[in-house]
């Protein structure tokens, strides 16, 4: 038997007894390492493939089928895609969703940043924790249960908000049943619920800015506005970019807020795209068409995210 020398011998000894006739190891240490890596990843990868990747791929196929769940799918070519172009309801839901995206983008980020700056100021630790917890708490509570509470707060008749407004001679308003106010009500609820999360992100960003930069600027005679304009805001741009991206994606996926608060009504005034996908899939049992709308949503979100990433090179400053 040939005596192995050098690195091959070392690798073979690491592999152990697995050797071919020619003395080559069946499994090299590198391959063994790769297999081990795959085995480690597999427990999380398999559910991901089974419950995420395959359904996503299946929905691509379903776009070309008529599948009412209780009977076999039928191949109908591009009929579902053609239907998209004449579907006024879908356009309405995209319009509503776009308004929610814009609204959450502005309010979540603006208010989140302001709140973060407020709680970042010097104050007793107890007070600081109290404010942080208070603002963050709605984010931890289930959306559906909070939306039920908000439903009663915003009720036109005997609703809490209208009662307070009536004390100063305003209202009553049809917060959830008027076509003009239903969508702003959903936005108001969503911002109230998620702004605490953005506050925490911005707070982390603020606290990561080195104190030495502020001290140096102060020595150079910078005032508060100049500190904010030239140090805080530029160094917060990576955080802001992250917040913009997840705020956009999250707003595109708004479902339960609107479903519980307004049911998408009146008419379609507050119906979002995801609600429309759900309606087609599980109320109308049109899985094919629901997949087609979902595909459009995927393309829109992906495009917007790419635009955000490309655009970020112009305004995001990393240290």
């Amino acid at each position, binding site marked *: 038997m040939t005596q192995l020398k050098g690195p091959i011998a070392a690798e073979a000894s690491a592999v152990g007894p697995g050797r071919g006739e020619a003395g080559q190891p069946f499994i090299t240490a590198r391959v063994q390492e790769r297999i081990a890596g795959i085995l480690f990843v597999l427990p999380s990868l398999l559910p991901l493939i089974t419950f995420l990747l395959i359904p996503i791929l299946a929905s691509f196929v379903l776009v070309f089928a008529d599948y009412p769940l209780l009977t076999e*799918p039928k*191949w109908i070519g591009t009929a579902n895609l053609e239907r998209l172009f004449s579907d006024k309801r879908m356009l309405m839901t995209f319009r509503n969703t776009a308004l929610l995206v814009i609204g959450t983008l502005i309010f979540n980020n603006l208010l989140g940043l302001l709140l973060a700056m407020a709680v970042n100021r010097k104050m007793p630790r107890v007070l600081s924790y109290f404010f942080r917890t208070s603002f963050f708490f709605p984010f931890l509570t289930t959306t559906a249960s909070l939306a039920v509470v908000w439903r009663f707060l915003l*009720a036109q*008749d005997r609703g809490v908000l209208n009662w307070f407004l009536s004390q100063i001679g305003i209202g009553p308003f049809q917060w959830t*049943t008027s076509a003009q106010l239903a969508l702003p009500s959903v936005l108001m609820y969503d911002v109230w619920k998620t702004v605490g999360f953005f506050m925490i992100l911005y707070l982390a960003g603020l606290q990561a800015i080195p104190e030495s930069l502020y001290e140096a600027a102060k020595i150079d005679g910078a005032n508060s506005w100049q500190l904010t304009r030239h140090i805080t805001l530029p160094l917060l741009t990576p955080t802001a970019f992250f917040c913009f991206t997840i705020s956009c994606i999250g707003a595109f996926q708004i479902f339960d807020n609107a479903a519980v608060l307004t049911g998408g*009504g009146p008419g*379609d005034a507050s119906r979002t795209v995801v609600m429309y996908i759900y309606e087609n899939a599980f109320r109308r049992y049109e899985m094919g068409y629901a997949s087609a709308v979902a595909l459009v949503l995927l393309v829109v979100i992906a495009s917007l995210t790419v635009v955000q990433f490309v655009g970020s090179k112009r305004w995001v400053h990393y240290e």
Partner: protein
Amino acid sequence: MEKKLTRREMLRLTGTVAAGSLLAACAAPAPQVVEKVVTQVVEKEKVVEKSVDKVVTATPPAKGPVTIVATNHLDLQAWEATAARIKEQLPNVTLQLVSTPWGGGWGAYADSVITRIAGGEQIDILAIGIELVPLMTSAKILRPLDDYLAGDKAAADDYANDIHPVLWQMPQVEGKQYGIPYAWNNMVIHYNKKVFQERGVDLPSKDWTWEDFANTCTKLSNVNDNENDVFGYHCDDIMFMLQPWYHSNETSPLSADWKDSNLTDPKIAETLTYLQEMIKSRAMISPQAQFDVWNQFVAGHLGMLSAGRWIVPFFGSQNFQDWDIALFPKNKGDIRSVVGTHQHGITTLAKAPDEAWIVLKEMTSAEQNISQMDFIGDIPARKSAAANERFTREGPGNVDLWYGSLDYAKTIPCPVNFNIVDPLLRRHYGSIWNGDKTVDQAVQEAHAELQKEMDALKG
């Protein structure tokens, strides 16, 4: 041209898109093919002997242990006594009762059941609301029970004697019986007697009219946008709840055969205008308004509401007794309520349908009708159960009106696409109630959309 795509083909396509045999191999096995099962069942039915005076054996009795899965929306405790009786009769049958959550109403229940069936899950006995029977029969999920009824005279006679014909006929599609009712609901006007007394308003008479009702609403309501507000009336606008208003005006959103829109009938606009006027004057709460109806009724801030008997357990839990019920006011004709049944049927997926029939009989027995009363507020399908003290003691004064309303009621329209029609109508009602659109404008738009959906069914 449409090409049929089997689930397996679909999965194969999916696997191809997944770029690789490895991924395809990871795919879950194809769900059970419903149509194949249906074919087998039909073949077995051909050998049924119809004149045998005992349980018909469509398939040979199961020799080994059999599992029968039954699902409905009741708490499992509601079935304990019945399950024990079934165990005595069928010792080799393992009965698996599944309580399907009903939180979002029949729609949410249907979502759950349909996705489970589509996923190939075994469900032998299925409880559904009448609205879904046409959908389930068109998809061949429910099997007809006529052969079992023909072969089981004792059971057939029992049902005929103890279940009102209106209820019995409801789960029939094209003359075939697809379910046995175990409970049902109507719609009546519940009124808070104390509010009537405080506002000095006469209680509803047996023959009150739309005009009487509107006057009553106006007198009851006292709205100043403060904590003492009293509203006259609330009614939801899902099809089942709004239907009595249409019935009392001798109309319906759908044609008599449920195949076309009937929204252009001027009586539809008349009905909606009548309700809209009451909403405008704030004598009536908008159907889609967020209003804690049940609590406000008990608290004396609402004089009348439309509901079935399902609300009665809530009144009991609040120890509220100051209320009674009346039929809807009439405008044209004598139909002043609506009926909807809940029934158990045997699915085409059932592997031991003979045993399932025996289980079904117990699940729709008079004993079960009584024992389920602790768990649902619905009216039992059996006359004997509705006359039982356990049922009548919960009142109200007009307790006979629960079962008696069947003489004044008509079934809810149940087209195959009920799941589409109901939300479609509600979307358009919303813009009427909030005044965004005129009744005529909203009705015309709803008609165009509804007729398109109905035409789609005709192929």
